[in-house]
């Protein structure tokens, strides 16, 4: 929709241009969130796309995703031998409430910054032990665990003037096997709960719960938990919530069901074939 109180849009070319940001001037990435609801408190936008950030960078240690990388770009990341977590990219893109046409503009960073409980990029980044890089308004940099970035329903660790620069996914988790489950009140509706399990090379087991809780919740185990232990730990989560996309008691219960499905799927699978990030990354680069 038209943002009629917005009187300026400036194109950022360097970090210095972000000084224009403030309580009523906010960063613009894809725009699908910002233009999707009234923003009468805003007077200006600073376009981040003109910064020209490389959407996806394969590094020695993992995958660096620019905040301005579109969900479409991320969903098209090629498969590579050893990149066991690869299915998550498409699964999480498809979990976005918005259509594939939204993927063409919506960005990974924008999804995190909107900080909706059902934000699937929050789930992806959290599940793979991602780290977010924040450019603070004072010029400093700060790195945070992605799972800690979203702090509540539409609340996060950004302050006015800050920008989310990138999301780093470590190679060590990109080669982990993962299992993905989500449920909504309708087949393709906004996620009522979304769970991602991860089986690491060292035997570790990580379950990340989003959408059903107001902020991501992670359950971490040194080795795969028993069904009863996992059920107990999911039931003990205390941040379920009720809105049009599901009641808190249902979210809690179906998270238990889906969590067990994930546990069983990862238990059945082959042990990791032993690929390391070093094996996978060259093929991803190619």
């Amino acid at each position, binding site marked *: *929709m038209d*943002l009629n109180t917005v009187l300026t849009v400036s194109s950022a070319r360097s970090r210095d241009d972000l000084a224009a940001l403030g309580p009523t001037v906010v960063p613009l990435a894809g725009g699908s969130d910002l233009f999707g609801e009234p923003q*009468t408190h805003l007077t200006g*936008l600073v376009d981040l796309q003109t910064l020209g950030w490389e959407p996806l960078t394969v590094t020695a240690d993992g995958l660096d995703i620019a905040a301005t990388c579109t969900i479409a770009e991320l969903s098209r990341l090629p498969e590579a031998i050893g990149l066991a977590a690869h299915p998550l990219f498409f699964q999480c893109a498809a979990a976005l409430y918005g*259509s594939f*046409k939204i993927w063409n503009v919506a960005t990974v960073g924008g999804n995190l910054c909107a900080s909706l409980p059902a934000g699937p990029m929050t789930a992806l980044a959290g599940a793979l032990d991602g780290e977010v890089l924040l450019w603070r308004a004072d010029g400093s940099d700060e790195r945070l665990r992605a799972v800690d970035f979203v702090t509540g329903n539409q609340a996060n660790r950004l302050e006015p003037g800050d920008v989310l620069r990138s999301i780093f996914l470590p190679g060590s988790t990109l080669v982990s096997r993962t299992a993905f489950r989500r*449920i909504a*009140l*309708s087949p393709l509706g906004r996620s009522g709960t979304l769970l991602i399990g991860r089986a690491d090379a060292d035997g570790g087991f990580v379950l990340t719960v989003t959408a059903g809780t107001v902020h991501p919740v992670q359950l971490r185990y040194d080795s795969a938990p028993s069904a009863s232990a996992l059920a107990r730990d999911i039931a003990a989560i205390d941040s379920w919530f009720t809105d*049009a996309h599901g009641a808190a008691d249902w979210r809690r219960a179906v998270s238990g069901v889906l969590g067990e499905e994930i546990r069983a799927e990862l238990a059945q699978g082959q042990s990791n074939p032993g690929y390391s990030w070093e094996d996978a990354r060259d093929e991803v680069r190619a």
Partner: protein
Amino acid sequence: MRLAVNGSPVEAPAAPGQCLRSFLREHEHFEVKKGCDTGDCGACSVLVDGTPVHSCVFPAFRAEDTDVTTAAGLGLPGTLAPVQQRFVDAGGFQCGFCTPGMVITASTLTEHDHDDLPRLLKGNLCRCTGYRSIADAIRGTHTPADGSACAPVGTPVDAPAATLGRVIRTGKVGTSLRAPASERIVSGQEPYTLDVAVPGLTHLSVLRSPHAHARIRSIDTREADALPGVHAVLSHADSPATLYSTGRHEDRLDDPDDTLVFDRVLRFRGQRVAAVVADTVAIAEAACRLISVEYELLPAVFDPAEALLPGAALVHGDKNAAESRLADPGRNLVAELHGEYGDLEAGLVEATRLVTGDWQTQRVAHTQLETHATIGWLEDDRLVLRTSSQVPFLVHREICRLFDLDPAGVRVFTARVGGGFGGKQEILTEDVVTLAVLKTGRPVQYEFSRTDELTAAPLRHPMRVKVTLGATDEGRLTALKVGVLSDTGAYGNHGPGVMFHGTSESVSLYSVPNKRVDAQSVYTNNLPSGAFRGYGLGQVIFGIESAVDDLARDLGMNPFDLRRLNCVGPTDPLVVTQVEGDDLIFGSYGLDQCLDLAQAALARGNGVAAPDGPEWQIGEGMATAMIATMPPRGHFAHASVTLEPTGRYTVRVGTAEFGNGTTTVHAQLAATALVIDPGLIDILHSDTDASGYDTGAYGSAGVVVAGKAVLRAATLLAEKLRAGTAGPAPVSAEADEYGARRSVAFNVQAFRVAVSTLTGEVRILQSIQAADAGVVMNPDQCRGQIEGGVAQAIGSSLFEEVILDGVGRVTTSVLRNYHIPLLADLPVTEVYFAETTDALGPLGAKSMSESPYNPVAPALANAVRDAIGIRPYELPMSRDRIWRLMHPGA
């Protein structure tokens, strides 16, 4: 900035916060529609350098140096692209408002994508069709009406008896003529309400009440008035003092007069407080924010049962009961019905089986893709209103009364309307636009946002329905008692009518010697309820048909047989609390066939297996519905047919086209009577200047009333022409239909479902509807009406709920929080027609637009009950609710 749109250069500035949709419409690319403005519905879809996007959330400035393609860029009438032609061939639209965006999205898909349509179309909402025809259009297939496997277009299909068989399009009634506007719709060239460039147009924005019940102590508009570009600020000081109702009927006395254009008392959150007319929407909105209002808060009531208690806050305590036609404003009572036929107590004493229950329905939003909108202007000192309405003639009459205008000095007309479903049987925009035009002398446009639709436009009445049935061991009903409490919200528009109609054919469907109905329609400080497809029947049928299902279970009797035993036959009297008037007759009777068709289809099955796993429980359910073929107490249509000197024919008829397909059927009726090619017919409709009077496109009257008038006029013209005495063209004939006698139509719905005991998911394995539509005028189109009605009802049954927070605030104010069905949510519904010929309808036809909706929710509830062994009493049967039924106290 510079860009190319459909290959033509455009050079113009974009405002900093402007979205591409509004930029394109500003440049008269009206094929780019606004359905939601939040990136959810897809009506605004365009290609930017070949990439499909929702243009409402695409910053306009980013289109600089791009090539933008709209639906018009794919092809135009006469030169349609293949994908557009497939939408024409498959009838892949009804109102057509979503179609340009749908076609754009479809243009990016390849055969490789055909199995992935549920995901790929989740950003394109259609409220009319139920998507089967859209999927056929995209895939280039034709799914037979019995739902069996898709066949390529043109392949003859061996369909079982009583399904539609092959699509034939001769143009005569009984064949599937395409909608006359088809080619324009798929290319975005059919203009809707706001698809017109009006020089000097100003825009109106409304300041809405933040309080559920308050009195305006003072209102200061000086800052708003002073804002450059503002032409008027309107508030209660400017309002006519005449009370009216937003709800419209042929007889204006049907609805209580309880509304003012601007009232000093605000009775729900979202009611108009003031309005600004300004050069742009942006200025009008800014000026609204500058209006300073001092409110005196008043006590409020939100629960309809509490509203009836002594001491409850009074919503319209200031009204005179007789003048406003309210049962008792001192008890918040708008209307009530208490009546008994036979002796209910005796019937209960006689019964050896008793079933009772208490059902609750929710608020449902029509969600027609085109929001309410009006453009008004002065033309030679006459007021002209171009409006999105189902009832332009009733709007005309009431606007004249309200503003004391000479009827000859006012013209009201509609372009093609982008969906209605009852929501446009209201005056929601025309009144304030009239005030603004009269005050400023300028052309004024007022367009509802989607949030306005979800938070301030009337919704389907939520009802509490108590049903008690008594029966003998043989299953013969001895007593039927129905209690209804209907929350009509802050205003009484349609409150009485919905209550009376809701308790009519739902009750008279059953032949029971002893009946009692107690119904009340009650004011609260919630947003108003209004007319919605089915007009109350669906809510009450949900209760009664669920109770009848419980009785069948108690008796161990097949639910189809229990209906055969107890439903009215063609010689029985129709009784609610007394024998219905002589105007209602069995012009035909097809319930028996509908029961047989649905039962046979359910027994045959469709080969769709239940999901694997012990958690999936399987169940079957069915329900019946009856509806009168038109509203009671008069529904009028005047039509004329003219042979023009050009050799073409003009049909003038007042009813509006909003996707119901009446223009198609009217062309067929005229073509059949005149024995001409329907391509020779032009239809002028829904214009108080240019077409004959019509009460309006509601109560399913488009074929049986307006169509009957068209048929008679065409027949008279044919007789004149054959007699050879008519002289040179133009030659005209006219006819009237008064709706003096009404018939009844039937629908039977059946489902087979699987329900997950772990998650509460309801998966529809088979969906069947058998319909008694009389002689089917246009099989493809009538099938589409049924599919669309079932789809909308599946939405109401499983997903949709306008949620309030308990103090009158809507929390589901955007489409992403109010879930209407996607392609992914719906099964293909098998459609079967009874073979009947109605004595009243034109060429034996009956109405078939509201009624397919009505039996769906109870049929689905009965199937869920069959699957899980627990009765759902509340809609929607969302996954969390169904799960909770199975896990109480978890």
